[in-house]
């Protein structure tokens, strides 16, 4: 066998959950928008990953990579096939902003990039963010 022979199995060739990997990377970008890695935020992301039914080891691998090499958020948005689902994931990202504190310039930039990539217009994006603020008691 050479280095370019195929492996015997596909194990580890891809994360177990494809769309969930996209979503987790987006949420990590949102919560680390300020560039500060807070252990409580990592814990929140791991809790979210568990809710997404991702294994902890796999989630940690993805999050560690995301912290070191930030994804293009618009590109992540384009990976989600269904436009309505993109909207729901954007709404989840908005909720994540409020879980992490407030909507600063960094957070807004990331949300705007996702909305742009997802094809969500500015008015709809603002309404979704306002809904999240209201539900989080920040409005």
């Amino acid at each position, binding site marked *: 066998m050479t*280095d*370019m*022979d*195929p*492996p015997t199995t*596909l194990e580890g*060739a*891809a*994360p177990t*959950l*494809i*769309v969930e*990997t*996209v*979503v*987790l*990377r*987006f949420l990590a970008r949102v919560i680390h928008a300020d560039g500060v890695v807070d252990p409580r935020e990592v814990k*929140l992301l791991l*809790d*979210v990953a568990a*809710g*997404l039914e991702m294994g902890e080891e796999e989630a940690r*691998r*993805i999050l*560690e*990579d995301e912290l*070191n*090499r930030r*994804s293009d958020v618009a*590109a*992540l948005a*384009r*990976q989600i*096939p*269904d436009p*309505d*689902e993109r909207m*729901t*994931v954007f*709404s*989840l990202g908005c*909720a*994540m902003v*409020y*879980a992490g504190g407030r909507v600063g310039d960094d957070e807004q930039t990331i949300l705007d990039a996702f909305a742009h990539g997802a094809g969500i217009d500015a008015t709809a994006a603002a309404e979704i963010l306002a809904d*999240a603020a209201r*539900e*989080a008691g920040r409005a």
Partner: protein
Amino acid sequence: MDVDHAIQFTLKGQEAMQLGQYEEAARAYHEAIRLAPRLDGAYFQYASALLWRGLPNEALAALDRCVALGGPWREHASGLAASVRAQLGAPPKKSKWAAIRGKVLTS
């Protein structure tokens, strides 16, 4: 020779993959493909790095190219592409995201 040079980049990519450095891995595999466009394993490994980076659409393009080359990695690429397409084509998981959103807002 370009193929030998390309294989060196795939080794570099494998090291990065083992360290969980998927962006670096993807770049190394991309360079391997540039040097040896018929090296089918490099497309598969490039796709693998892209999947870990959360870029399944771009990964599928690489897997399809790997299949089209008809080399020894074809079956693996075909199997992985089918698995990725099945997940992307599954019914939207809006209720799943909404449930997580509820938990996040009350955290």
